[in-house]
């Protein structure tokens, strides 16, 4: 059995740092780490920190893993500069504040952790900031839709219908293709309750507040009734009904639904 199949349900957490780092990336990681330490440990706004920060900001766009956005509608340099500015400035001045916050929130130890773990953590954090700046620009440019399909970046989807008001017709046509849709079969099963499982499931001394009645009014009715109204109608304590519905009926209905599905499949 291979490791991959295990990792589907198991997560292996390696606390040590991998030594299999390519040379070029290794050098970049060390350089990044040294500049990061310089920025964090220098006094905010000091000449020393400004030097470290300038070199760091020059290095970041070339770091392995930095997100590149290719769209002729957008000048990539603009969101990149905005992202770099947002991480290097605090209260209007050059500061290591955001880097210190990153180190703290990621529970990194700048003095004792391996230099190689800082770049990947930074990249993930920075790319999200950069992408948020990109979406800001799309929004500013007049609500141009941002297409985010990673698997098929060049292929935009075409809705099968043009407008919201056509959904009913589409759904009706689709439902007519199926003899009895599974949703209808399931509703019928619950409405019939031939074994009386749902009708017999009710709070003590409140036989009228059984699961079938509640399912009809809370799941099948559109819009659903409010629990408080049902409690009043059925002359049941609101708290009792709420608890019965959530703790007994819903798990029972989900269990019935799941079993019903498997019976259908098999």
């Amino acid at each position, binding site marked *: 059995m291979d490791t991959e199949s295990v990792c589907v349900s*198991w997560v292996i957490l390696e606390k*040590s740092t991998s030594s299999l780092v390519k040379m070029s990336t290794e050098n970049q990681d060390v350089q990044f780490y040294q500049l990061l330490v310089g920025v964090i440990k220098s006094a905010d706004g000091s000449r020393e920190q400004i030097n470290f920060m300038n070199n760091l900001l020059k290095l970041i766009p070339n770091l392995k893993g930095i997100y590149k956005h290719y769209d002729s509608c957008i000048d990539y340099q603009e969101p990149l500069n905005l992202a770099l500015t947002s991480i290097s400035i605090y209260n209007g001045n050059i500061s290591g504040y955001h880097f210190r916050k990153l180190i703290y929130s990621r529970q990194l130890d700048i003095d004792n952790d391996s230099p190689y773990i800082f770049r990947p953590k930074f990249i993930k954090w920075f790319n999200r900031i950069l992408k948020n700046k990109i979406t800001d620009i799309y929004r500013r440019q007049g609500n141009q839709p941002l297409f*985010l399909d990673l698997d098929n970046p060049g292929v935009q989807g075409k*809705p099968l219908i043009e407008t919201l008001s056509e959904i009913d017709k589409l759904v009706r046509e*689709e439902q007519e293709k199926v003899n009895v849709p599974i949703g209808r079969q399931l*509703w019928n099963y619950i409405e019939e309750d031939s074994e009386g499982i749902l009708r017999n499931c009710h709070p003590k001394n409140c036989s009228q507040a059984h699961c079938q009645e509640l399912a009809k009014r809370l*799941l099948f009715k559109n819009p659903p009734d409010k629990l408080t109204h049902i409690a009043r109608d059925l002359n049941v304590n609101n708290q009792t009904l709420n608890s019965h519905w959530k703790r007994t009926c819903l798990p029972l209905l989900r269990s019935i639904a799941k079993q019903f599905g498997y019976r259908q499949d098999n």
Partner: protein
Amino acid sequence: MSSIDTFFSIPVKLNNQAYSDAKKFAGEQATVEKGKQVYLNTLAVYAVDSYLKWMDFETDITQGDCWNPRIRAISDVADLVLPGIGKLECRPVLPGETTIHLPPDNLPPELMSDRIGYIAVQFEEKLDKVNLLGFCPLDNSEDTGEEIKISELKSLEEMTEYLGDLEEKSLSQDRLYQMSVNLSQWLEGIIDNIDNHIDKAWKPVEEILGINKTQLMLTARRGDNSSSVIRATEINLQREDIVYSFALVVAVISKSSDKRDICLQIHPLNQAYLPLNLKFVASNESGILAQEEAKHRKREWMQLNVKEGKPQEEFTVKIEIDGVIAIGKFLI
């Protein structure tokens, strides 16, 4: 009708798969109204999924309740699973609506507990795009009202920061789960029928351990007439150049309709004995249920018993050797 917008909304185009699945899922429903609800829920989940993937979050759209044909037929669900983090509920907003409507009455409390927030997905009359309007974090499901005003939503930038923190927190606390292993489903006999990649990792014990060692597991189901299922999986933990291979064997024994005993064993696969200091722990929210540690050499296997678990209860199993950890989450 005019649309309510947030100044930070993000317009998103969907792919053909989204439209196609939405139509298919809607066609399975009992009524046109229910079909429309499912259609919009599916598109909303796809829109959020594509955005979060772009933001480099791991998602698993197929693991949500809304992907289960039976559950979506009886519930108003639009959940997106972020493995190790939780579920985001993607709520459609129609033209003219100024609030997002929450469906608090169709999920049991234990299922609400893994919801980490709501994200509003706005539809306009034209269906060629949707707008991600904003986000509302959810810390305590019991406190959720029935609706949230769109004007009170937080920005998606705040959401990515929030999710990023949760992602890091789950990693740092060794609490990263891909998904649950549903043990009740094993008892329902579906392991051999359902095309589920999780269960493919769980094989008959003799396939993993060989015939001789399989005898050990007989203890797990001896002595009563209750039904049981036993499966095993292989776990490899690597520490620098050393690879430790283990078989984790899990026996689920149904004592009654609402009581299950779980027996867990760990065996070495690439050596005769378990490595010294190997820790084997089962725990749930209340604390440690059972634990063992290989404190002496020549320990051939270790066993944990989780007694009288109830359906829908969860527990985790941790295997740790020299700081390398594997964690699995089990749903009884």
